[in-house]
């Protein structure tokens, strides 16, 4: 009876260790503070109607950015704890137990990959892709909202262990089997990991389908594929990877969960399970995933370099082919993550060679960026700072990657700090720098005012210097034999000075983050001085700059006909006037259904983790009922009459 109501939940799940108590207190206080603020300023209705139920991709994009920033703080907290532990744990246990340390780096990885980087990119894509292709909205506005809220519910679930349960997975971010099986990990931590990944994976998949269909079907008339801006092209490639790879993640984590919940034997040690199959499958997803993280950044930098060099991107066609080649090859290299597992020389050579081949399209892109800058009128605004930092780090991290592409070299540094340094160089140097550059670049378009240039450049220097000081020691440590994920080590190894240097680098990065927080606050305070009145603060080249800043919710009053891949640049050269004839516009209504379904999905995840049968049944019924209710709702769209459009447009031109 007790089991029926509470599943595996017992009083042990209540926070009773310092970090779960701390986390719980923080979460509750933050929630109360937000609640008080909203009540005092009477903004609950505003929040619900203007933001939470919105299907406008600009609003959803902003919500993604806010969510990603919050999760970023959590991920950096985890990172800081790791650095601190490793700096002091020479010949001592440090301040963390081994198990706690393992939970920290596990959650650091999952949060940073799934909830920070992917959310930032979906945010930027939501903002900009519809504007770049001349579309008014994504192909499926409701699914856009649902995808976002599913991601949030996944983020809630991954943080919930602080409040209920106390244990997160200690298996590393990919929950390697058989360590993640019931035999070695009977507590709910791994289940929290699996189900938060399933929820956010579902959200990502929906967003991937949405953007793919939008880019293929909703381009403005005249925009053939080869006239699309490079950010849109790269987003398309990333979406192809999402729809190809995420189902593999869904299936594989499902199988792991089946092993745990139903005593199946896919990856267990006994009963003829095959643990190596787990690693094979999860990396089949894992490798395309890391390309999903970097390909959009390449696209963003292409836009930024051509805009701030006032020159057409060199070799547009070769850039498209490079992106497509990277996309294709990224699905053929996953075994390089486990060269050491013992597949033998034939298999290892094949994957090693294909891995090295990816350097070619990557090189094509780098040279094209440099050729774009050559003889251009370069404006070193802060996005260009991030670009140059990216270029340097991409070279270093890329070389480390090519080094490891050779199986015999990889045998020496596999799972050492060299590997850790490599992938952080790529994720921070490429993905994160791309995100920072993209935010600065497109901020005035979405919010109507520029960010403070000086502060952004300061933040860049903190990040860039900090990154070198934090991660170059890790490359050295890797070569010296330091493995990853160790919670303590012998002082005789001589590693501690390097770990301490890395910690100092982290402090620099912290200054960078503090500068960025200050940057946002300062820019919002001074927004009236930095207003973008023209809609084109950087002398841009692509279609998104042809709208107001911020754009009206329908983006374009009249959709232009596209004649080249740098539409706006050509429009400006030919002298361009806004169209005065307006038409009725079909718009999508706000809806709370995305939130309701995600709430049920969250409860479902929680019920599954704790094996509370009645909750599972109830939430499933809830999700299905919502979907059926939705299927009978034929009135999710409305028409905005042309007179209304005219009124909105006139108001923009007056003020």
């Amino acid at each position, binding site marked *: 009876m007790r089991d029926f109501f509470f599943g595996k939940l017992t009083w042990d799940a209540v926070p009773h260790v310092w970090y779960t108590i701390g986390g719980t207190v923080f979460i509750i206080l933050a929630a109360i503070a937000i609640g008080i603020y909203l009540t005092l300023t009477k903004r609950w209705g505003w929040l619900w109607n203007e933001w939470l139920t919105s299907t406008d991709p600009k609003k959803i994009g902003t919500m993604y950015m806010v969510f990603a920033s919050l999760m970023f703080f959590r991920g950096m907290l985890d990172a800081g704890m790791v650095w601190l532990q490793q700096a002091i744990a020479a010949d001592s246990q440090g301040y963390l137990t081994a198990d706690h340390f393992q939970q920290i780096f596990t959650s650091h990885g999952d949060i940073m990959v799934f909830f920070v980087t992917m959310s930032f990119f979906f945010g930027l894509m939501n903002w900009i892709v519809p504007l770049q292709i001349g579309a008014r909205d994504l*192909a*499926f506005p409701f*699914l856009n909202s649902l995808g976002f809220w599913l991601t949030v519910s996944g983020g809630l679930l991954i943080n919930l262990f602080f409040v209920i349960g106390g244990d997160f997975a200690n298996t590393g971010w990919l929950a390697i089997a058989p360590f993640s099986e019931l035999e070695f990990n009977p507590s709910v931590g791994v289940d929290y990991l699996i189900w938060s990944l399933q929820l956010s994976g579902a959200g990502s*998949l929906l967003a991937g*389908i*949405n953007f*793919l*269909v939008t880019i*293929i*079907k*909703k381009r403005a008339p005249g925009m053939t594929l080869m006239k699309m801006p490079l950010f849109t092209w790269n987003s398309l490639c990333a979406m192809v990877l999402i*729809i*190809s790879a*995420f*189902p*593999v993640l*869904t*299936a*594989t984590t499902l*199988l792991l969960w*089946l*092993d745990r919940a*139903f*005593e*199946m*034997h*896919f990856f*267990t040690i*006994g*009963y*003829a*399970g*095959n643990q190596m*199959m787990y690693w094979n*499958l999860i990396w089949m997803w894992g490798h395309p995933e890391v390309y999903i993280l970097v390909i959009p950044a390449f696209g963003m930098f292409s836009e930024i370099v051509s805009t701030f060099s006032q020159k057409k991107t060199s070799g547009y066609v070769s850039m498209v082919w490079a992106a497509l080649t990277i996309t294709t090859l990224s699905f053929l290299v996953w075994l390089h993550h486990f060269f050491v597992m013992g597949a033998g020389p034939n298999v290892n050579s094949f994957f090693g060679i294909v891995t090295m081949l990816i350097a070619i399209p990557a090189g094509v892109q780098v040279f094209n960026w440099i050729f774009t800058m050559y003889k251009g009128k370069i404006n070193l605004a802060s996005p260009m700072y991030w670009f140059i930092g990216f270029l340097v780090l991409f070279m270093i991290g890329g070389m480390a990657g090519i080094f490891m592409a050779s199986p015999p070299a990889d045998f020496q540094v596999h799972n050492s700090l060299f590997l850790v340094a490599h992938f952080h160089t790529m994720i921070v140097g490429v993905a994160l720098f791309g995100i920072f550059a993209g935010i600065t670049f497109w901020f005035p378009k979405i919010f109507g005012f520029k960010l403070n240039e000086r502060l952004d450049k300061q933040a860049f220097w903190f990040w860039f210097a900090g990154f070198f000081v934090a991660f170059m020691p890790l490359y050295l440590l890797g070569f010296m034999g330091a493995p990853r994920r160790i919670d303590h080590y012998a002082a005789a190894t001589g590693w501690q000075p390097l770990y301490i240097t890395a910690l100092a680098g982290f402090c620099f990065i912290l200054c960078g983050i503090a500068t960025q927080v200050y940057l946002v606050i300062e820019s919002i305070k001074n927004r009236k001085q930095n207003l973008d009145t023209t809609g084109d603060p950087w002398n841009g080249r692509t279609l998104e700059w042809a709208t107001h800043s911020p754009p009206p919710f329908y983006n374009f009053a009249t959709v232009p006909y596209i004649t080249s891949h740098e539409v706006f640049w050509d429009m400006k050269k030919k002298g361009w006037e806004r169209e005065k004839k307006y038409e009725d516009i079909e718009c999508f209504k706000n809806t709370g259904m995305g939130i309701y379904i995600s709430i049920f999905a969250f409860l479902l995840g929680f019920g599954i983790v704790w094996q509370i049968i009645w909750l599972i049944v109830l939430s499933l019924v809830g999700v*299905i009922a919502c979907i*059926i209710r939705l*299927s*009978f709702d*034929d009135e999710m769209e409305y028409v905005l009459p042309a007179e209304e459009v005219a009124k909105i447009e006139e108001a923009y031109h007056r003020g």
Partner: protein
Amino acid sequence: MDKPMINVSDTKIFGFWVYLMTDLIIFAVLFACFIVLHGNTFNGPTAKELFHLPTALAETLFLLTSSFTCSLGMLAISRQQKKWAIVWFIVTFLLGAAFLYIEISEFSEFLAKGASWKRSAFLSSFFTLVGTHGLHISIGLLWMVVMMFRIALRPLTEHSVSRIFRMALFWHFLDFVWIFIFTTVYGIGYLL
């Protein structure tokens, strides 16, 4: 005579088509697992011992026929014949339910023999692959019922037809996947 009311390249249907592709990839992972693990019987029951091929053939024929009657239903929809559409979809539903009934009976029989998913990696992968397909069938049956209500209660506008078509597409793909389950699980599993 038959004006195509449904265009598979319409945005909504294309979006659903892309979703179906991702579903196929989930099945691909389950297939890969089954093929890799089909010999891992851990001295337990093997495919040859367990599988009753006439049963598998019966399931296959029921599902194949249901895919056929489903297209007859869509044909009726394209001719605006609500009554015939409902008739054919009811037949499809019954055939699909029969398929599910046979499958559940097969599972019960295995469980009664002690060949549960806990017995070996082979059985885990069998139950998961075939069971996932059965779960999709159940969802398809539920969807079919909801669509039959739509046909009865709402006019057959382009919007309605698009929704019904997506359900039919889902149903066709279920038989599409079953072809490979029949061949790989019952066929290759039995032969090897």
